């Protein structure tokens, strides 16, 4: 089945991809390999997964201030997620996309969801994000 939710675009844009989801926050510094797009925080449930080109859904960023720099470098290297979805406003992820626009004229969408909408997402769903922040979620589950 499919359903539509509305996110608040912190950085607007279009993207489509498979949802990679965790309810645990992630620091990109020490947590994301900008050369490969692998999640490398060995204490994180998504450790070993590749987020490049996928829609990464995390509640918020954790830890290091350098998260923004690593995400920016992954956008330059072409290994970043296609979009990032969070609960509430996470400035660290949004900033990387804003600076990428200044430097490379490229962005990835960063959207803020309500806790309820975030909880409906499941790993393996496909999400299609529009410029206005509407997200079409196609899911395998019967729900």
């Amino acid at each position: 089945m499919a359903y539509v939710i509305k996110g608040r675009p912190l950085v607007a844009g279009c993207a489509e991809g498979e949802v990679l989801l965790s309810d645990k926050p992630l620091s990109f510094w020490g947590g994301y390999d900008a050369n490969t797009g692998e999640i490398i925080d060995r204490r994180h449930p998504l450790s070993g997964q590749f987020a490049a080109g996928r829609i990464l859904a995390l509640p918020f960023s954790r830890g290091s201030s350098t998260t923004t720099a690593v995400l920016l470098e992954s956008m330059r290297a072409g290994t970043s997620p296609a979009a990032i979805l969070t609960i509430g406003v996470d400035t660290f992820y949004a900033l990387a996309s804003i600076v990428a626009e200044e430097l490379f004229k490229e962005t990835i969408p960063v959207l803020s969801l309500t806790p309820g909408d975030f909880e409906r997402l499941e790993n393996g769903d496909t999400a299609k994000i529009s410029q206005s922040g509407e997200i079409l979620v196609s899911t395998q589950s019967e729900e």
Partner: protein
Amino acid sequence: MSKRDHLCLSDYDRDLLAGESGPGAQMAMRIIVRMAEILGAERLIDIEAAHIDSSIYMGEATLKFAETLVDLGAKVAVPSTLNVSGVDEHGWRHWSVPPDWAEKALRQMRAYEQMGCIPTWTCAPYQTEFKPKPGQQIAWGESNAIAFANSIIGARTERYPDLLDICAAITARVPAAGLHLEENRAGQVLLRLMEVPARVQRHESFYPVLGHLMGKVAGEKNPVVTGMEGHPEWDQLKALAAAAASSGTVGLFHLVGITPEAPTLETAFHGNVPEQEIDVTMEHLREAWRELSTAEGRELDLVVLGCPHFSLAEFKRLVHLIDGKEKHKDVMFLVNSNRAMRALADEAGHLRSLAAFGGVMTVDTCPLATPMLSAEIEVVMTNSAKFAYYAPGLLDERVVFGALEDCVMSAVEGRVMRDESLWRT
């Protein structure tokens, strides 16, 4: 005043945005205003100082960002200290740093110096003469430094990510949001230490272990701890803050009876009721202690101290432990700090003691920020919860967490030795 959503900009802000102070300041202000809009801030406020975590070299993108700002003529408008760099500029050839990395990391260092930043090159700027004053509005990057400045000193900074700290320094303006505002500094989560014996609380590992636990349970909230005894030293509080800002998103915490904004429980919560209350027992602390190590067995390649950067007081304690001893030939012993602290330690005779022990020092960076370690190093021991948290992901190493005494003993013996009596049931 022009209005953008809820955001009201001053004449100064609009002048910068219009490019009247040059294209570098214009780009910085454009980024500050975008962030203010995202945060729903109503205005920008002045800051008196900044600490720039953007100094860390993370690849072509961070170098391009820094050099773009320099090319556009950007200069910092407030005293701005620099965090660690991507390379020990005078010492990198002794290590496994690729020359191409060193060259680019050095270019990035020069770029931040050209913008007028102060070359402190440390993740512990609160150990320098540039430490902020209580109540001062500042824009600091570096998660451990943010938590320390807010919680231990009582200065006011939001958690600034890399790339935004330098924009704040160039414009001297930040969104009026987050931990800059009194109402967001109230405690939210209460951690009550339950029957944690004084001998545990006196132990040096208690602070990083409590910090690690605090970060995990607090998430994005401001934690408050009651039941702490004694008067912890700055280095102990430094270890606690760094741990909490690694396992969690903690930018401000209150220790009742210890930190400046928490003389009483009621003050710490601004008179509010805690959103959540957690009883912290020895069992919780033991679990947190166990989590900090990922290696098993006795194998050991490297001991790392100085995360955050080693202080003079820590040097004194270390020298007391290593004097008259020599480390094992198969284990490397590394202390991290910055160039100014190395000069002080040298003057005090501590570097002679470190060399006699067989230890080495690296300055202005650390193994987490520069690729200095060879791939043959597999097991690292440290007294830092922050290093223990990040080393497995960043360095692909297994890690053992122990007290300073344990680290020295292990370096001498050439294998992991820990006094575990407090942490094992």
